[in-house]
Structures are given as C-alpha cells and as structure tokens.
C-alpha cells in the first residue's frame, strides 16, 4: 500500500505535478522566514522566544498558527492565505444577496472569472487593512504582549524614515499576499489538490512539530503519549465520518439511438454525510479572526467600548462561552450554506432527466429534486453538528488556561489536516488509477 507513494513518483505526469506542488510549497515557506524590510530578524527571533517564555497568553497565537509562524516573524508572507479565504467567503455570501453577482454566477465560465477577479481585488483590500493592523500592533509592541521593546526589532522607529518604511512594509506584505493567492491558483491548476486548502494545510503543519515539542518538554511522558493516542483516535473518527456516504440509487432507462442500445445501467449519487468538507471550518475560523483584526486596528490599549467588548467575548484564547457558541453556530451555518451553493438538487435532477435517469419509485423532475433536497438536509444536519463538535471538542475538553490553542491537535487543525490529506491522497489515487496502477486504497 505504501509502495503507492513510491509509484506516484514513478509516473512521469504525476511526478511533475507532485514536484511542482512541493516546489510552490517550498517557496511559500521561504517567504514565511524572510523578514519584511526594516525588520531585524535576529532581534525578532529573540523577541518571539521571550514572549513564549513569559507564557503570556497571546491573543495572536491562533492567527500565528494560521500563518504558519510567519506573522510573529513579520515576514513577507506574514498574512498567509487568510485574506484570500476571507475574500472568497465574502464574495460567496454576496452572490446569494446581490442580484448582479448572482446573474454573473449563472453566466457560467465568463461570469465566474469575473467573480474571481472581484475576489482578488477584495483580497488586496483586506491585505492592506490587515497588514496595517499588524504593523500598528508591532509598532506599539502589543504584538508581543509588550514582552520586548519595539525599537529592538524595528530599528527605524523614531527616525525620519519611520513613515516611509512603515508604508513600504504594508506594500510588501500586501504584495506577499498577492503572490500567495497566485500560488494557490497555480497549485489548483497545475499541481495536486486544492491550492487554497493545501496552503492552509502547510501553514498549520509548519507549526505542528513546535507544538508537539512544547508538550514533550513541558509535561511528563505519559501526557505526551496520551496526546498522541487522542490524536490518532480523533483522526480515525474524522476519517470515519468523511468516508460515510449515502448512496442514492439511479437507474438509467435503456434507449435506442440509431442502431445502438444505450443506458440500462444502474449507478448511484454519492452524498457524503459531511458533504461540505472542511470549508465551513476554514470559513468560520477566518471570520472569527476579524474581531482580532478590529482590535488591532483600534488599538487594544484604549478604553474603547468596542475593543473592550471584543476582548471579553471574542478573545480566541479566552474560551468565553459566547465565543465558542458563535464559532459553533458559524460552522453549522456555513456547512448548510456551502452544501447549498455546491450541490444544486434541481440541477442534478434536471441532468438525470435529460439522460433518462431516475431514482426508483420517484418521478423524474421536480419530485426528484425535492427528494434529493430532503435527503441532503437530513444528512447535512448531523454532518454540520459533527463538524462543530469536533472543532470545539478539544477547546472545551482542555478548558481555560490557554492550553487549548497551543494544543497541536486542536479540533480545527485536525479537521483541516485530515480533510485536506484525504482530498489530496484521493486525487493522487485517481491519477494513479488512470494509469492502471494500484492506488493506496485497496
């Protein structure tokens, strides 16, 4: 079975795709260690360590996790893939609300590329906002919980260059975000797997070894073993649900076209229990990242009521019930929403009707669409609840003390790791099977 990994590299076409993907991921990581201009990388390294040692529960730990450690380094790719994801959620949501966008979406290919274009513009706008907020926090030293002096890692502060350099950093980080966006599209187009998911996957696993090391060094060995066992159990659970399908049987009527006989076969429509995949989790966590962004923009030191409110209720480290509930509701909501925009029962029913297919005992056309909708809603309900529970389980189980966010097997990371892993492996598998090789999954 594991020989399949080797065979994947023996197939020339697949090898090229895999190498291309790895190449892009490598450059992606390179950008995460190159500091933005004006930043003293040695000093900032020290600063990150100091912050970690003081154990100040860092609000930005979650964000840092999602940027693969690049944020606290003030790297060129500090913002990671998040602005792009946020932008695509916003546009997805707007497609439902704004009639013009809906019309564009129905237009097909041309309209879709227009929407993609809008997503890119929005990404740039978000990147400017976000990098400004990050720089503002770095300048006051708040990014590191005031554990070190800003002048150390930003030597240009209080000189006549201050403003131009700050503007330049914003430019560089925004440009970095654009490059990441391009990387994502390149991977989807020419590599293996979905670019956006793979990039976020890379960001998460980049921080994984450090998290495990922390657990190893700070706790007795049995805790480490327990964490590993819990991780494997969680992974198995996630795989179990991800693989569960409801197969709706479809019969194709026999028909004569000319002298040939067509159809007469029976297949099925696979409906996954969790049809939405990991996207809802990614969406929900990137939306919950907005409050922190606002806090950064307004400055946490002020006694602004909004900041106060956000800090009490939406602090990712606080595990406040309001935060957890919002997170849960967002995941469930996005699960339904994403299923609704990716699977259109009316369209599927229409296509089946066109090719003479029908679900036994259900009439083609509208009744079929209604039936599909019925089944889908009943499957998505437990699927969405499962996503919400898995994402929150570690946070609730580990309770307060901020241990949860440092826990490498956080629900969100597990879901993304396993979800993206499964998707990518399956894609490699289908490439292998095209060439009649045995895949991984016999």
């Amino acid at each position, binding site marked *: *079975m594991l020989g399949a990994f080797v065979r994947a590299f023996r197939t020339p076409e697949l090898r090229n795709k895999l190498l291309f993907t790895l190449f892009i991921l490598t450059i992606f990581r390179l950008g995460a*260690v*190159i500091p933005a201009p004006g930043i003293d*990388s040695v000093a900032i390294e020290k600063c990150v360590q100091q912050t970690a040692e003081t154990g100040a529960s860092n609000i930005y730990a979650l964000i840092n996790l999602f940027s693969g450690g690049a944020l606290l380094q003030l790297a060129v790719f500090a913002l990671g893939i998040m602005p792009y994801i946020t932008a695509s959620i916003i546009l997805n949501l707007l497609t439902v609300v704004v009639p013009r966008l809906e019309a564009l979406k129905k237009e097909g290919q041309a309209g879709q590329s227009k929407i993609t274009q809008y997503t890119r513009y929005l990404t740039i706008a978000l990147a400017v906002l976000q990098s400004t907020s990050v720089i503002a926090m770095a300048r006051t030293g708040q990014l590191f919980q005031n554990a070190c002096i800003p002048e150390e890692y930003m030597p240009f502060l209080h000189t006549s260059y201050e403003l131009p350099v700050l503007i330049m950093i914003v430019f560089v980080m925004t440009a970095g975000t654009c490059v990441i966006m391009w990387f994502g599209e390149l991977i989807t187009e020419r590599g293996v797997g979905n670019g956006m998911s793979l990039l976020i996957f890379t960001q998460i696993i980049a921080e994984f070894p450090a998290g495990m090391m922390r657990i190893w060094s700070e706790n007795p060995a049995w805790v480490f073993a327990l964490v590993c066992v819990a991780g*494997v159990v969680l992974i198995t659970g996630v*795989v179990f649900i991800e693989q*569960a399908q*409801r197969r709706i049987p479809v019969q194709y009527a026999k028909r004569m076209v000319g002298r040939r006989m067509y159809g007469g076969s029976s297949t099925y429509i696979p409906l996954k229990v969790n049809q939405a995949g990991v996207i809802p989790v990614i969406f929900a966590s990137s939306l919950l990242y907005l409050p922190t962004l606002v806090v950064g923009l307004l400055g946490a030191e002020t006694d602004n009521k909004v900041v106060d409110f956000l800090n009490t209720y939406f602090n990712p480290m606080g595990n406040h019930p309001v935060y957890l509930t919002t997170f849960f509701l967002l995941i469930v909501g996005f699960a339904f929403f994403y299923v609704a925009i990716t699977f259109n029962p009316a369209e599927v029913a229409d296509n089946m009707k066109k090719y003479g297919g029908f679900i036994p005992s259900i009439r083609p056309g509208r009744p079929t669409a209604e039936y599909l909708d019925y089944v889908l809603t009943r*499957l998505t309900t437990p699927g969405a609840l499962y996503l919400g529970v898995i994402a929150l389980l570690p946070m609730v189980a580990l309770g307060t003390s901020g241990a949860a966010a440092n826990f490498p097997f956080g629900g969100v990371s597990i879901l993304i790791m396993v979800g993206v892993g499964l998707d990518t492996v399956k894609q490699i598998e289908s490439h292998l099977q095209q060439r009649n090789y045995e895949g*991984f999954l016999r």
Partner: protein
Amino acid sequence: MAQTDTGAKSGERKRRTGPVTFTKQVVAELRKVRWPTQRELFTYTVVVIVFVLIMIGYVSLVNFGFGEGVTWLYGLVGQAA
C-alpha cells in the same frame, strides 16, 4: 380557476416538519448511510497519517533549512556592517 390554483399550491406546500419528526427522519437517513468497513477505515487512516507525517517532515526540513539560512545570512550582513 385562479383560486383553485392558489389553493392547490398552498396545499402542495409541505407543512414545516416538527423537530421530533425531523430527528426521526435524520436517524432514518443515517441508517441508510454506507459507513466505511473496518478494513477501509484502517487503510484510509494509515494513509492519511502517513501523508500528513511526510508533509510535516518535508515542511519542517524546509523550515529548518530556511531558518538557519536566514539567520546565517543576516548574521553575516550584521558582521560586515
């Protein structure tokens, strides 16, 4: 005519399903789901874990290399200045 039309339509519109019925229907649908077999589950889990471990290994290697490289490079520049 118009009246019978609207009448038919509102009659066709399904009444909202109550939470109890809905839960029953959910359970009924879940029973029809094809859950993965033990063997399948094992294979997929192992493959996913192996894939994730390979990726973690690769990314940490790259990280380590670049981290060292950047520190070295900037240290060099710092000494020269």
